[in-house]
């Protein structure tokens, strides 16, 4: 308990908490990681020569899972807010809610993957399968790690290791969880929705339209 308090309040030459700095640096590197996966998927989109591809995506189901993950972000920030106000019971409730909503999201993803497999789409089927399943699979792995982290914080509230004085512990986990949420916001928007229109053609088309409006076309 003393250790956790010490690392939350230690003095540094930058004036920034080192662990929080580390988390932001990690998130910065993870931006590049997911950026690479998303770019690879977009580049190879529409180039699969066999098997099911873009038209297999189920937008209504994914909209629900997106909503669930968004609400888990709300639960996460409410857990932190509760802890910072010294309301440990509230923090505990919202931590559990966040983990449960994350589990529901994972459930949706497993359902989606099972449906794809049922329709013949696996990572080995074609370029769409490889790039899409690896990208969303890595995101799901991040969510799963986050769920374990959240449950560990939840149980730590019972033995006094997490309390108002070291809310930074929950804040750092929250940064990770919200990052997982924003990655999904981008994947849902760019890959599921925009991608369904054929991103390359329409970005080009939109560029021509913008040029025409500005008088360059």
């Amino acid at each position, binding site marked *: 308990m003393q250790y956790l308090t010490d690392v939350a309040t230690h003095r540094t030459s930058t004036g920034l908490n080192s662990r929080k700095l580390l988390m932001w640096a990690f*998130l*910065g590197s993870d*931006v590049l990681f997911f950026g690479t996966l998303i770019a690879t998927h977009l580049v190879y989109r529409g180039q699969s020569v066999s098997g099911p591809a873009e038209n297999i995506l189920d*937008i*209504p189901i994914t909209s629900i899972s997106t909503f669930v993950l968004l609400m888990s972000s709300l639960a996460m920030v*409410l857990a932190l807010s509760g802890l*910072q106000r010294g309301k440990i019971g509230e923090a505990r409730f919202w931590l559990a809610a966040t983990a449960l909503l994350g589990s529901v999201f994972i459930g949706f993803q497993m359902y989606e993957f099972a449906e794809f497999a049922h329709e013949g789409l696996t990572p080995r089927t074609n370029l769409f399968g490889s790039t899409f399943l690896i990208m969303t699979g890595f995101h799901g792995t991040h969510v799963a790690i986050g769920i374990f982290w959240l449950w560990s914080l939840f149980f730590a509230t019972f033995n006094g290791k997490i309390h108002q004085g070291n809310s930074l512990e929950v804040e750092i986990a929250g940064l990770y969880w919200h990052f997982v949420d924003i990655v999904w916001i*981008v994947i849902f928007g760019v890959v599921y*929705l925009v991608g369904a229109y054929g991103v390359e053609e329409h970005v080009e088309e939109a560029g021509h339209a913008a040029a025409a409006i500005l008088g360059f076309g």
Partner: protein
Amino acid sequence: MAHLADSHDSHPGPRLYITVALILAALTGIEVGAFFLELSSWIVVWILILLTLTKFLMVVFFFMHLRMDDNRFSLLFFAPMVIMVSVVVALLALFQNLTR
């Protein structure tokens, strides 16, 4: 240094967070609605990109507290973001030219 620069005594309360979450949910609804609209496809694409960007920034600034946190955290996060967006745009442009 008497106190850490990243201390958070001024975090907003639950009401703001719930408002932000409701806006995020509404924007997601608009996104899905726009997807099924019979509009010109480039208009829908730009609406979707704009809504995605808005949701992204709302989570980053309100839920991750970058709005009120130290600017060096923003730099650590947004610098790779600029690189990432540049890479995506460059790759799309490159492969579009190579494959069409």
